[in-house]
């Protein structure tokens, strides 16, 4: 499958460093948790979670050269995409859903939340950020009519601390957890889910090249994040020694995550 090159039809600023890009295309069969490879011809191509199917939408935080270049693009500019790739969230057998997101991870969870709402499943979305300006998608999630919990590390909005501090009795009610965010947050959620015996699905990131299971670049202890993931169950992740510890760069060299705060929550 070659990339499809289409126009950007809308750009929405979500917070000081995150923008949503709406493309002149649709991706009818995509599931929440799946991703696309977004191509800026002549520059690079990077993975981003799908936020909506029609029109195809992604939400991008400016963190480096590629995402900053994308932020400079204007409506009408051409971008390429291919996908949908990977295994998304399994939303069958709806129960009491607790969705836990950090940073831009909330955008992928918004897609899951809107799917679950269409199935009339009860949903709580817990979102975290460093300060209130780091929060993302709060209005959109509210508009879905779901229960929203907020935490900020500096206490400027909601509970003070990491997103896990805001969960309260949503955790006791939950029969399923979906999570997307920095790996340190995912490790905390995995431990919580295993301890409380709540089935959990977590979306993991690793460096990607092909996106379709050929290059091996995205290996997570032998699982291919682009194909076997990016969504894994907490039980699966608990058996993968590299989860929470080791990631690989573009050369394939393995690195340890620095402490637990490798990326901010």
């Amino acid at each position, binding site marked *: 499958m070659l990339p499809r090159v289409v126009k950007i039809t809308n750009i929405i600023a979500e917070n000081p460093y995150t923008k949503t890009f709406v493309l002149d295309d649709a991706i009818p069969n995509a599931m929440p948790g799946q991703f696309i490879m977004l191509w800026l011809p002549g520059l690079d191509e990077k993975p981003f979670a799908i936020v909506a199917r029609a029109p195809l939408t992604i939400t991008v935080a400016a963190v480096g050269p590629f995402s900053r270049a994308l932020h400079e693009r204007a409506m009408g500019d051409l971008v390429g995409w291919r996908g949908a790739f990977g295994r998304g969230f399994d939303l069958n057998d709806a129960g009491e859903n607790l969705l836990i997101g950090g940073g831009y991870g909330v955008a992928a969870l918004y897609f899951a939340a809107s799917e679950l709402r269409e199935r009339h499943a009860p949903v709580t979305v817990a979102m975290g950020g460093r300060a209130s300006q780091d929060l993302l998608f709060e209005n959109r999630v509210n508009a879905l009519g779901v229960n929203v919990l907020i935490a900020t590390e500096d206490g400027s909005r909601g509970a003070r601390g990491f997103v896990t501090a805001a969960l309260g009795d949503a955790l006791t009610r939950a029969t399923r957890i979906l999570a997307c965010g920095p790996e340190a947050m995912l490790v905390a959620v995995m431990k919580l889910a295993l301890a409380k015996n709540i089935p959990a699905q977590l979306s993991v990131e690793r460096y990607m090249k092909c996106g379709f299971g050929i*290059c091996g670049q995205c290996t997570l202890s032998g699982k291919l994040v682009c194909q076997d993931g990016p969504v894994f169950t907490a039980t699966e992740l608990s058996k993968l020694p590299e989860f929470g510890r080791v990631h690989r760069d*573009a050369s394939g060299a*393995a690195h340890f995550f620095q402490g637990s705060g490798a990326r901010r929550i």
Partner: protein
Amino acid sequence: MSEPDLSVELCGIPLRNPTVLASGILGLSEDLLIRVGESGAGAVVTKSCGLKPRAGYPNPVIADWGAGLINAVGLSNPGVEATAQEIQTAKHALKRKNIAVIASIFAESVWDFGTVAEKISSAQPDLIEVNISCPNVEHEFGQFFCATPYVAAQVTRRVKQSTKIPIIVKLSPNEANIAEIAKAVVQAGADAISAINTLGPGMVLDIESRAPIISNRIGGISGAAIHPIAVRCVYDIARATPRVPLIGIGGNATARDAIEMIIAGAHAVGVGSAILSRGLDVFDEITRGIAEYMTRHNYARLADFRARVLETAPVSGVRP
């Protein structure tokens, strides 16, 4: 008749079946090498490693254009030391299962080929595959090592002097006469040959933006599209160097493709791009299909049909 025997021996290394994971596909980490081995491959080859870590080119580095893949990864690799460690772990796990681990190496100069070979040998891979489809930075125009029989033989000699482990030289279909190069590297000491590396270079363009799809603009072609060319190369090499073990690579996706390679002269068959469409079951599927074919034809061993192309007279004496 009893079960056909699908085992082969490559330079003294026994393989339980003739399927081999091709270099550059999945073989990035010990866990992946083990996973591919356990899924059915007779041997696994690492991604080619060089002296120093290399990030490679920016994305896209691989594209699926419909009838095959195009790739220019830029020889990304974590460096020979890191790869040696991965090999050590993989070998430990795969040895018990009789699955061979082959280290693939490349370098930027004839001299460095020896250095990389020496370093990778510390991990005791079963075999070393020498990837000569890469540019010689000491050459004025960055000519590939595979471009002339002379330089290909120089690399072979240098690697042979640097290791006691048997070496496979991997040939490119893109340069000169592949049979001539095969002869030259065998004379220089190659213990085995593998062929082919990717064909090309080729180019795939996006017609909306008019941009080349992969960042390097041009890249090597692999997959179904190149299979007939790979079979012809294997046929030519097998006739030029008949006693030398040969791994036939290029577009192998089914047992039929693999059997064709063996009839043309291959001892073992490499599988790369087909993993995209067939998944990791491809190794088992090929092995089972070859066994069925052998039973049907009453072949007890692979040697019973290897290098047995029915010699028909060509219509004209000249190749198209």
